[in-house]
């Protein structure tokens, strides 16, 4: 139809002086042309359809006519576009009005995006991934906020080294622990575990390289090492040529029968900080700025165990995950002079030492298709903190932060999820807060990966 109109327009432009009768003749001719074309197109479509569907009702013909392999030519993906997916997340939160949320007894970890009350948008995440060439894969994850765009991950990974070795380079979430490499949309709860909040704010990312090796054994064994800039909490950016942080991790895993599978791991993170900011309330209940310089060492042990009847997770399945950490920091702490605001600190710098620990344990049960419920218990131990001479200005906390969370989620399909969560939060010494969350997580575009 479109072609006929174009042709008419072209002819009209080419022969502007034609008389009316000639035009009529032309129109008739065009009409004939058009019908002829339409018939031919219809015939072609029918032939294509026939070619695409194999002979439907020809059961008693010779079995496989030609069992010769066809050329392995059809591309798995049309074009060279990377797989793109967009994660939409948002929530409603019913929380107490608390100005400065923190975890009692722990220096605040950077990279927290606040906890707004009422309706709000969480991270919106854009993910692009593809093979770069026969040697590398690439991955890109952008987190979008109102006033901030953050490259959460942007890395390449080798695919052709073989022998179980992969090298990853760029910005990536560290392989330490279990939850660390998960983005918030993959969490089983609407908010982060207290452990990860205290350790890293959200999770530990790094600009650097990762070397990983999987052993050629039936039992899953992998070990990995990372070196990087170390700009994220508990380290900070120190403007130097060498690596600012080092991570080592090892994992073991396997199946027990068809219904059970597990993975356990141990990780170690070593990093340094130079004048790392922190905020703490001093003896006068005033905000005091602290600057920490020194070494930070973190150990994380993790265990995941999953169950599904016959390994078929469709109807019912259960997942247990627990992680434990221990962190020691050693160095010096300066408490900036805040006497002008009525504070207690006078700018003293003195030795600082801390040894802190904590864990979370959670169980998620899918009791019928689409519906899951879960419980999480968080507990931290402020352990021993020694402020040195600054202990004259800074109080120690003996409150053990604790939280119980209960969630129910409903996933209409693999690509959408709605969640209701209740938490009883005692992460701050003076608070006993009832928190309610209603959350949605939707994923558009490419099919997500089913991580263990």
């Amino acid at each position, binding site marked *: 139809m479109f072609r006929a109109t174009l042709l008419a327009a072209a002819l009209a432009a080419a022969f502007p002086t034609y008389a009316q009768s000639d035009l009529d003749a032309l129109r008739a001719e065009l009409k004939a042309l058009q019908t002829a074309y339409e018939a031919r197109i219809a015939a072609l479509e029918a032939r294509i359809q026939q070619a695409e*569907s194999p002979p439907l009702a020809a059961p008693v013909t010779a079995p496989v006519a030609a*069992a010769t392999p066809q050329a392995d030519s059809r591309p798995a993906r049309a074009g060279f576009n990377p797989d793109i997916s967009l994660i939409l997340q948002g929530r409603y939160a019913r929380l107490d009005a608390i100005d400065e949320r923190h975890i009692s007894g722990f220096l605040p970890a950077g990279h927290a995006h606040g906890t707004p009350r009422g309706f709000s948008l969480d991270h919106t995440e854009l993910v692009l991934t593809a093979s770069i060439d026969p040697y590398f894969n690439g991955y890109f994850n952008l987190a979008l906020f109102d006033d901030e765009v953050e490259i959460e991950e942007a890395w390449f990974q080798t695919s052709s080294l073989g022998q179980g070795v992969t090298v990853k380079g760029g910005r990536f979430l560290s392989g330490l622990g279990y939850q660390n490499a998960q983005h918030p949309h993959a969490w089983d709860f609407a908010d982060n575990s207290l452990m990860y909040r205290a350790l890293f704010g959200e999770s530990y990312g790094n600009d650097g390289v990762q070397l990983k090796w999987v052993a050629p054994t039936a039992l899953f064994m992998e070990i990995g090492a990372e070196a990087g800039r170390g700009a994220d909490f508990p380290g900070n950016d120190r403007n130097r040529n060498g690596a600012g942080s080092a991570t080592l991790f090892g994992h073991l895993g396997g199946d027990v029968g068809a219904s059970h599978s597990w993975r356990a791991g141990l990780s170690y993170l070593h990093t340094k900080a130079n004048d790392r900011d922190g905020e703490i309330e001093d003896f006068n209940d005033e905000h005091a700025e602290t600057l920490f310089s020194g070494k930070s060492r973190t150990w994380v042990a993790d265990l995941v165990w999953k169950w599904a009847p016959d390994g078929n997770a469709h109807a019912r399945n259960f997942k247990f995950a627990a992680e434990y950490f221990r962190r020691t920091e050693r160095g010096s702490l300066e408490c900036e002079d805040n006497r002008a605001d009525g504070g207690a600190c006078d700018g003293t710098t003195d030795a600082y030492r801390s040894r802190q620990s904590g864990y979370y344990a959670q169980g998620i049960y899918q009791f019928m298709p689409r519906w899951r419920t879960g419980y999480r218990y968080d507990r931290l131990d402020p352990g021993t903190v020694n402020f040195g001479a600054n202990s004259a200005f800074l109080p120690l906390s003996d409150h053990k932060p604790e939280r119980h969370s209960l969630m129910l989620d409903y996933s209409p399909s693999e690509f959408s999820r709605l969640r209701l969560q209740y938490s009883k939060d005692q992460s701050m010494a003076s608070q006993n807060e009832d928190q309610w969350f209603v959350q949605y997580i939707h994923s558009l575009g490419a099919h997500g990966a089913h991580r263990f």
Partner: protein
Amino acid sequence: MKHILIACLLWLPLAAHAALNVFACEPEWGALVREIGGASVKVYTATTALQDPHRIEARPSLIAQMRRADLVVCSGADLEAGWLPLLLREAGNARVQPGRPGYFEATRFVTLLEKPATLDRAQGDVHAAGNPHIHTDPRNIARVGAALAARMSELDPAGASAYQVQWQAFSARWNAAIAGWQARAAPLKNLPVVVHHKSFSYLLAWLGMVEVATLEPRPGIEPSAAHLGRIAAQLQTTPARAVLRAAYHSPRSADWLAQRSGIPALALPYTVGGNARAGDLFGLFDDTLDQLLKAVP
């Protein structure tokens, strides 16, 4: 340095004689590799007939097996989209990366049905390349088998003659069996059936059966009560003779509809290991046809 080179050269032919380690994503391909490779291949099958191949997680045990594989045999066409790419990425095994001889996608060797005209997730978890459940038509198994035998010969030249002999023997038995199944299946022609998921499209196309409804309102979406109600009403006017589900599908929906409509619900094995009789590829189709024929008076 020279010694290392010599050592490598001496070691290489030894490696070539070693049995092929095959990672099969689904039981049907594991069984086919065994038919072709016999005792000289070691096959690890990543899923069982009781597991939904769409919904597998990249478990540590699978990464470990992927790491050791010389050949990965999967359906492809996005059936394993959620887990296979992750396994390939995590295992660090260069031999089996897409594009290498060690990576074999069965759907590349047959013509796929139900290729969607438009790609929109409002249509459910549709597969862009078409329906990936190709093995429910035994003729497709023969097509894939020929390509697989060639690939195994390419990867393991020392075993090539054995693979070809075993493939020819299997192929002859298989073609004879297909002729037998087709003769037996004559009464199934134009038989209207309801299916749980579009897992049997190739089986139905092969035998000339007619799918009148699917229990899943859209591919990958759990059957809802409302949708089942609509199908029950639809069956009043256009009756079906059986409800088909795969062994890994929950029986609830199929049983409910069967009871409501007074037709049998058949738990077809779907793949090797789906029930006691479906111990190998021949048993799979013997049992499938027996069950279907029982539904025809």
